[in-house]
């Protein structure tokens, strides 16, 4: 177990450093000069040169990389070029909203997927199952950002029930629903198939033969066994949400890391882009690691693996 943990921690570290270097390289070879963007069209060549010096952009590239990695290890990504605030302050202030959105989305996903999945398994190939499966297929075929816009159109602009943007509690609902629908579609299929598999297991047949009520069988045998894969997927999805929700955060103006990333890309604010990507990498890597460990903890078959 400990050697496995050490191995996984090392892998996580390598992933993070490699991503950091990849980000550095991409930013340097990208077209568009941040200093020229910052100073505007009216800046003279002299002013631009002084700006480059101030941000260390005049050093040789390997020296820049070395300094950058050492600073990154201490969470020092420099200052935002457009806002002048230290990058780590700017980025860390966005972590809370992103994590909150991720947690609410996953909870919503589970609340939708598990009961519906069991229902579809119990009424397999009946109308309920077919309609739900069809709905899941459609939910996975629509662009999520478009779904978000349609929800804004209906619930914010037409019905005026919910705000379409902002960082308040009510404003959390629409982005969370938008993100949860396609995820729930995936998990509900998984839950349905797992439940069908468990319902065929000998211990369920035995429990039925013993005359246990269906609700007890579902609670004691089916749910416990079928839910493990769904929770594992949920963990991985949570990790992906921390990085992959960027588009939806932008649609709803939700103040998360993803929205900051998209905005910083538009303004070529390189230090912030670097900070966002590296922070997202760390979050994805840490969540994946935790999910893996939790899985090994829950499922005894994996403990000695």
């Amino acid at each position, binding site marked *: 177990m400990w050697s496995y943990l050490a191995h996984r921690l090392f892998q996580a570290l390598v*992933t993070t450093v*490699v991503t950091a270097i990849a*980000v550095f390289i*991409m*930013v340097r*070879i*990208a*077209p568009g000069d941040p200093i020229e963007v910052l100073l505007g069209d009216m800046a003279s060549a002299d002013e631009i040169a002084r700006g480059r010096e101030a941000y260390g952009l005049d050093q040789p590239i390997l020296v820049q990389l070395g300094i950058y990695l050492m600073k990154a290890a201490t969470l020092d990504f420099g200052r935002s070029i457009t806002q002048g605030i230290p990058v780590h302050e700017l980025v860390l202030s966005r972590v809370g909203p992103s994590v909150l959105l991720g947690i609410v989305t996953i909870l919503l996903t589970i609340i939708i997927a598990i009961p519906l999945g069991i229902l579809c398994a119990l009424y397999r190939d009946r109308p309920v199952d077919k309609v739900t499966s069809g709905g899941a*297929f*459609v939910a*996975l*075929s*629509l*662009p*999520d*950002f*478009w*779904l978000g*816009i*349609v929800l*804004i*159109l209906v619930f914010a*602009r037409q019905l005026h029930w919910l705000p379409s943007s902002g960082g308040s509690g009510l404003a959390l609902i629409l982005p969370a629903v938008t993100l949860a629908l396609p995820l729930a579609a995936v998990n509900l299929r998984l839950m349905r198939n797992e439940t069908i598999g468990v319902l065929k297991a000998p211990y369920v047949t035995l429990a039925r033969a013993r005359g246990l009520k269906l609700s007890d069988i579902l609670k004691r045998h089916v749910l416990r066994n079928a839910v493990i894969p769904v929770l594992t997927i949920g963990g991985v999805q949570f*990790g*992906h*949400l921390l*990085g*992959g929700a*960027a*588009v939806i955060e*932008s*649609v709803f103006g939700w103040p998360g890391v993803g929205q900051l*990333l*998209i905005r910083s*890309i*538009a303004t070529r604010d390189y230090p912030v*882009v670097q900070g966002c*990507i590296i922070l*997202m*990498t760390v979050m*994805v*890597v840490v969540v*994946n690691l935790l999910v893996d460990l939790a899985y090994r903890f829950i499922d005894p078959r994996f403990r000695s693996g």
Partner: protein
Amino acid sequence: MTGPSSSLWRKPPLGVIMLIAMILLAVIGPLVVAFNPASVDTSSRLLAPFSYNRNGTFFLLGTDQLGRGMLEQILHGARISLLIGVAAALLAGLAGTLVGVTAGWLGGRSETFIMRVADVQLSFPSILIAVFLAAFVPPSILAVIAVLAITRWAQIARLARAVTVKARQQSYVEAALTLGFPVPKVIWSCILPNLVAPLIIVLTAELSLIILAESALGYLGLGTPPTVPSWGRIIANGKNYLDNAWWISTLPGLGIGFVVIAIGLTGDWMRRVLARGGFEVN
């Protein structure tokens, strides 16, 4: 056995019909209706679907804030989005197959390294990688194709490696090598045929994901250049007019949904056909 082909056309599958209809619209549509992204027609601004402007011109799907017809934009966008999707899927398929087969054939350290890289990439949300890469290349159709292919090669490589490793152990591969056939020839005629059926299935699924990702990049303004209409770009444009022109953002999304549903149904159908034809499809 009559084989799969005889019964195929008796009952034409819905997904294939939808897909063919969409491809015809995307190919022929832009030839019939012209679209000039730079045109501005103030007399036809923000017209609802099924309405006429003052000059009596009919707009089936309405117009946007510059008076440009939605039907024209969506048809031209369809061509671009489908073209990018198919090209990116083929490129990802080619690169993934090349890398995966190489890894599976060589084995050892190079296999471990290649598969580790694929694992690392797959642990990240692909849209994040696409956004990140697209942010640093100048907008062009070729750049979008390359970016989308890069985000999707790893899945294909995994599949190609798994199939190669399995096929390599077969006695016919051993026989071919013993008989002295050159390795490229053995890979071509003994390994790749095993890959065709699963690759078709996986590439179909990837095509859907690529079309969805392309629209997301377009929405963020990171896709095609502003002069090229793309579905995602039209949706982003309409978001500023949700209060008085719901049709700008919603209609292109329906187009994307239609295509992705058609591809999904076609994929299911192909899986059944290939399975009935005796192919092994995971």
